[in-house]
């Protein structure tokens, strides 16, 4: 079984927001201005941390959790965790009750006012199934910090990078520890 994960090492993120626009491009025709956001980048700080000023960019997007709170929350069985690891929200089945939105610990689900459904990243499954990287993970990120693939391999890559940097960076991104737990 091939387990897919989308992991963003926020330590390395520069806040360039290309991933946001890449996701928009994938899901909206050129003429459509906006449309719902599956992924959003936001400034965390500047704030005081241990007496030092710190400032990071955070990327909010579905983490395709191993034990997804959203799946449990949905009364319509509209969200399911697939064999390959992707958590899919089925828009046909979604009635827009918004229970999942409250339950997601990462605030990764939004309400699409136009379609009156919940909306979230489905990990570009239409691309992944055809052997294409998700739009945001297809090498557009200047920090090379958006990873797609097997979570254990990604963890390894991030650890190696951290070593090369001289030990900088979070030890393990949250999603990895989640998927282990």
């Amino acid at each position, binding site marked *: 079984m*091939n387990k897919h994960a989308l992991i963003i090492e926020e330590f*390395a*993120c*520069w*806040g*360039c*927001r*290309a991933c*946001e*626009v*890449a996701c*928009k*491009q994938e899901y909206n025709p*050129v*003429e*459509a*201005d*906006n449309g719902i956001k599956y992924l959003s980048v936001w400034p965390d*700080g*500047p*704030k*005081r941390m241990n007496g030092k*000023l*710190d*400032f*990071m*960019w955070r990327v909010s997007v579905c983490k395709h959790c191993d034990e997804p709170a959203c799946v449990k929350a949905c009364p319509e069985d509209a969200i399911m965790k697939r064999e390959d690891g992707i958590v899919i929200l089925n828009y046909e089945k979604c009635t827009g009750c918004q229970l999942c939105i409250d339950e997601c610990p990462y605030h990764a689900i939004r309400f699409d006012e136009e379609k009156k459904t919940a909306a979230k990243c489905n990990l570009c499954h239409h*691309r992944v199934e*055809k*052997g*294409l*990287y998700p739009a945001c993970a*297809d*090498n*557009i*990120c*200047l*920090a*090379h910090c958006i990873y*797609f*693939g097997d979570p254990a391999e990604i963890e390894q890559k991030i650890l190696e*990078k951290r070593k*090369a*940097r*001289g030990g*900088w960076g979070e030890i393990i991104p949250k999603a990895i520890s989640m998927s282990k737990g």
Partner: protein
Amino acid sequence: MPEFRYSNIEREMEVYGYDSFVKSHCRMCHGGCGVIVYVKNGKVSKIAGDPDCPIAHGTLCAKGLASAQLAYHKDRLTYPVKRIGPKASGKWEQISWDEALDTIAERILTYKEKHGPESVVFGYGTGRENEAVIYRIANVLGSPNVVTAGHFCYGPRICTSIITCGTNPIVDYENFPKCIIMWGNNVTISNPDEYKGEPFSVALDKGANLIVVDPRLTRPAARANVWLQLRPGTDAALALGMLNVIVNEKLYDKEFVEKYTHGWEPFVKRVNEYPLDRVEEITWVPKEKIREAAHLFATTKPAAIQWGVAIEQQTNCADNDRLLMFLMGITGNIDAPGGQVLNRQPNVVNVGQFGAHGMLPKDQFAKRLGGDRFRLASRFAILQPKCVWDAILEEKPYPVKMLFLISTNPLITSANAREVYRALEKVEFMAVADFFLTPTAELADIVLPAATWLEMDYVGDYWKRHGYILPRRKVIQVGECRSDHEMLNDLARRIGQGQYWWNNFEEALDYILHPMNITWNDFKKTNYIRGEVKYYKYKEGGFSTPTRKFELYSTTLEKMGYDPLPQHREPSESPVSTPDLYKEYPYILITGARQPGFFHTENRQIGRLRELDRDPIVEIHPDTAAKEKIKEGDWVIIESRRGSVRQRVRLSLGRDPRIVAAQHGWWFPEKKDPGHGWQESNINILTDNALESCDPAMGASNIRTLLCRIYPEAKGDSHE
């Protein structure tokens, strides 16, 4: 299970049923990234990065990804128009290209006849790699006047590097610098000339140390080993302080200094005028930190300085640039692998030759506006814009009658916007080429619809110093839009310059490439061509300067009558230079921090980019906010001696409470009146363009550091 590969073109074509793809070269900013443009039913359907591109290695930014939204924008100008009402009435009528170009040609010839070619001023901004054609038409005409951002953006790096070491030293990310100073820019957001954030980011991932010089806490500053949070406008003093440490603690490269520099002794004397106590007092940076940064930079090899425009939009522009080069130079990092390389371009007709600077007669060169005053700029064909506005408004030293502005919106980008407005309102005839009817274009007589990078063939990055040229291939045609190059090629023939131009612009591309014995058609088949890669070239032939040395003491500046050694000059308005004014305007205003989706005044109408940054933001410290009774998200008034605008507050701990940081470039295309809100949040309404406040050699306007007040907007006190 299918195998995953980045930018899998064949599979994209198959899965999405695209009709074709074109590899091209983005020009939404200075970055110049290689892209793959997928086309379906004759329209751009998707833009992706090209992994074969040596500049960005397939990564892209928000602007590049949104290019198709620019090309197909509903408000885009797609045919030539002439104004049929008074200026700024918003009354336009469609005309043919022939009528438009004939009208412009007739005006150029009439003004040339009556007032001399110098009365016709061309201009461009930072947009579309059009500098070579614009200089060519002006020089052949005999006009010495091309008004650009060159006085305070990139031009200074070119001018000062030519007189110091022959050419602009470019960071050699390919060989992974082990220490990087990011000085006054954030390459991860802004992609300044020659640079993309990607190689910088990779260098950090390889373990490079990072020093950031910035009054604001950016993410790079937060990640840095040392963050030097300086008082705005004191870069030169800080650099002199670092040089003081490097010189007195003998951390410099002795062989380089002995064999390859000119003016070491007077330079040391000057540096000794800046002991760390004095530098700390000027810059607000603790001297331990200055010493730490100087040590880290001087003792880690190779090391490089990622520089940018912020240090140039200051009173001390030329010396700031020179001082950073001195840091690169005396530490032995110039032309060293992983340091800062004096690249060789491929063997093409260079931009200067194409620009026909040699054809400008001597007596016309002598008439360059402001040429007596800003002598370094003038030598390199660069003007101080105020000299143009003055010539329009006061007709001194002679009248300027016509402006032809191409891809530039000076009403928003030039200092002291209200004066710019008066000049554009008064000028007898103005033609503009742009994508939209911008606030500047609304004051024109004729506006020509310009092509985006998706709509033109060109030798991409032709003018740059990173050593590469890359083909920009035309993908689509939108309406009647034409590239700046094509429209000027056509116009030139209508004003009798036919013998110096071409039947079509493809022939001009062949001309650029002919020294390599290839044509545009051959070049189009390549991904890129790179110039010869060679390090330490100065060890054989010296530097391309008058002394053949790396000039710490500039013989060129000395001849021009300037101080040959760099110094710190206080900004024209500062707590130190104008303490009385500081009592009335108690905050230091800095301007121009970049947003990822915008390129100066561009892209405010592009949905996917505007949604990233809806409003013009001014960042202030929470303490300042409390003092001024301002809350997060409030609209506030920022006011200087010259005027006031409104922006929206974001509270941020990441700057000194004495500093207020406002965004630049704002107008509101969604406002349909012809002003499009140009006065509402345009920070250049506040900036100073007095000639006395400019850099004495380059004429750089000091738009980055001034004094302001900030206070809540009274209810109903909206500016529009």
